[in-house]
């Protein structure tokens, strides 16, 4: 276990270093000048040159790379070129918003996807199965921004159950109201994935010998499905959930924008539009860290749900 963690940690450090370098290079290859963006289109060449010097982006690339790497190591990620606030503060301010959205979406996704997947598997090639498969296909192919607008029109504008501006933590009720629509929007996509994975995993497990044995021994059908089969089918489900945390965080960009929620997605779009180098670099570090950590956590959970997996 210890050796496994160490190995994963070393691997993560290498990954992080590679990502940092890649981001540094890519951010600077993309044309566009942050000084120009900050000063606007009336600034003359001299003013832009002065701003570039102030931002330190007129220094040799290697020099910039050196200070970027050493800064990243000690947690000094610089200040946003656009807002003038420390990058780490900006990220930490909005990170909880994205994490809570991801978490609630996952819970919604699992709560809908697992039972429907099991239901579909148990009723293979019968009406419930067809309905579940069609539902998950719809969920996967429906553009999330369209569903977001539909949810807003239906539940925020017509029914007035939820607010359009979905960012409010003043009371638990306000929090619940503001997170529901965006979380359902993301959760439905997640549910579609989970339904499919659960269905196929269950189908496979249900053909195993021990299920047949249990049936022969007269174990109640419900107990076979939920206690024996699902327990084993959970392994691929956990994997897919783990993998999709990263994807969900990526998907949250659109959801955050349409539902007016703060978050990493909104931050990265703004940073990209304004060529905010330090912010982009900081964001990439955070994204990489999240993905790396989620992968490690997925491996650990794997061992917990399947005793046959050994972490070595």
């Amino acid at each position, binding site marked *: 276990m210890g050796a496994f963690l160490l190995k994963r940690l070393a691997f993560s450090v290498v990954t992080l270093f590679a990502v940092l370098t890649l981001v540094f290079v890519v951010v600077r290859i*993309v*044309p*566009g*000048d942050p000084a*120009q*963006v*900050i*000063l*606007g*289109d*009336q*600034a*003359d*060449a*001299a*003013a832009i040159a*002065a*701003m570039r010097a*102030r931002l330190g982006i007129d220094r040799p690339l290697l020099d910039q790379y050196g200070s970027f790497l050493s800064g990243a190591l000690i947690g000094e990620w610089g*200040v946003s070129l*656009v*807002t*003038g*606030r420390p990058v780490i503060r*900006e990220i930490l*301010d*909005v990170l909880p918003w994205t994490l809570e959205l991801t978490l609630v979406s996952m819970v919604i996704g699992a709560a809908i996807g697992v039972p429907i997947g099991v239901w579909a598997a148990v009723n293979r090639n019968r009406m419930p199965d067809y309905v579940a498969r069609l539902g998950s296909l719809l969920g996967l192919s429906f553009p999330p921004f369209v569903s977001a*607008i539909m949810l*807003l*029109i239906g539940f*925020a*504008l017509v*029914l*007035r*159950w*939820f*607010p*359009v*501006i979905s*960012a409010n933590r003043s009371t638990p*009720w306000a929090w619940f*109201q503001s997170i529901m629509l965006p979380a359902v929007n993301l959760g439905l996509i997640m549910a579609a994935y989970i339904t499919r994975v659960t269905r196929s995993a269950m189908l496979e497990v249900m053909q195993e010998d021990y299920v047949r044995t249990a049936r022969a021994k007269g174990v109640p059908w419900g107990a076979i499905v939920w206690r024996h089969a699902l327990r084993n089918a959970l392994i691929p489900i956990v994997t897919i959930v783990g993998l999709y945390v990263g994807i969900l965080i990526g998907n949250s960009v659109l959801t955050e*924008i*349409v*539902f*007016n929620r*703060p*978050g990493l997605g*909104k*931050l990265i*779009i*703004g940073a990209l*539009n*304004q*060529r905010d180098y330090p912010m982009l670099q900081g964001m990439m570090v955070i994204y990489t860290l999240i993905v790396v950590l989620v992968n490690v956590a997925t491996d650990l959970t794997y061992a917990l749900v399947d005793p046959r997996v050994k972490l070595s």
Partner: protein
Amino acid sequence: MRRTLVWTAIAGALAATPAAAQKTTLTVGMQSQDAGVLDPHINSGTPGKAFLQWMFNGLVRIKPGELSPDFIEPDLAESWTSSPDGKEWTFKLRQGVQCHHDYGEFTAEDAVYSLKRASTKDSSAFSSDYASVDKIEAVDKYTLKITLKEAIPSLLGIVMNYHGGNMVCKKAAEELGKDGFAKKPVGTGPFMFAEYVPQQYAKVVANPKYFRGAPKLKEIVYRFIPSDSSRDLAFQAGEIDMMLGRQEQAWVDRMTAIPGTKVVAMAPAEMSVLHLNMSLPPFNDIRVRQAFAMAIDRNAIWQFRGKGISRPAVSVVPSGYSGTNDQAPLYPYDVAKAKALLAEAGYPNGITVKAIHTTLPGMMSFMEATQALLKKAGITMEIIPVEHPTFHAQIRQDLSQVVHFQAARFPVADVYLTQFFHSRSTVKTPTAVTNFSHCSVADAEIDAARSETDKAKQIALWKTAQEKIVKEVCAVPVNEMLQLWAYKDSLDLGYELKASLNLGPPILETTRFVK
């Protein structure tokens, strides 16, 4: 069914509670996810300018709702005089004006500090506006003297509540430092900075000591809502009271249909101009440039962009600016003549030109419509779409033969003429601004007008400059797009909103909800 109704009622009541208490809170929705650096001497973006204007005064201001400098009126200065040669200006300040957050009385010292700050490269994005300023002195506590190296078209334009003319309080700026000040801007305006929540909103509250009287609104919440559809929905749901609109006629029609909504198309209009790079073939031949100009039907573009939200361009300087030549001899739409001119220039089969262009939807649809018009005259315009910051970088590197630039400027002809058509502003030079066409034909008039103190002669020079630029076809002005805002008709702004130089409606001490 009954249960659903009950739930709807409960949820509706819960949701409605905060809205009912909002009579003195104005919530504004902006198409942005941030206001940028909250320093009036740095921020030049629409979201920042619209917001910062509620906190800052200038020495003078343009009457709220108007655009032209002809409407200049006192702000922090009660009166002013200038020497006959226009090089010495003296301002008498109002007494007893208080800086926000108890930073003391605003005096000539603060005004000197503000203008020096605005003219320093390190602390201002607008320093070049102050290049002609020689000395700024406080004669006494309430008197300020500005001495110029040479007379400039509008000194009042650089001491008004716009860009560098915004007056900051010295003690606050020094105490907080440049970065600190940007987090807690301190001015003298009707509203004081209160809170900034990244990606969500910025808030200002009423300044009870405002010299024109305490504002009737208690606070303004400035919400960052980048998605157009979400902003519309939030407005319809009553979560915001005022919003920046999408520059489309369909948006105007849809919003106007919502009961209790007022939609305003206000100046300054952003003018779409096609700059032709005259330094390279085929645009180094005037006949080709003339053909290009004649291939564009300004009326067709006007209809395409929406008659209520745009208007055809009249000159290479937008209409309504001080010094615009309404009679500039723009080339008429004439496809046959355009083809003939191309043939005469040695291109009987037409030409193909390259235009690097931003992917911003509004600007792109204009460009595509223009592309279709040009095609009829045998001009193939290849549009190379790039992302907005890339567009700005590449057009300044002289990489595009045709540059579509859409902009509004300080409404004095000099600014447009200097930035876009003076040879000093030519791209890829050390003094570059936005002269993409390499135009130099009216340098003499532009320079002469700058130091001309006789207003009539100055305007005559500007008009001549415009005639020359139009005749030379350095650029083809096509269309002007107005700024669209919608707000609840229960909001009484306290003036008629026809224009706002700061690109957002001014909110005054008299602004209030009437219902």
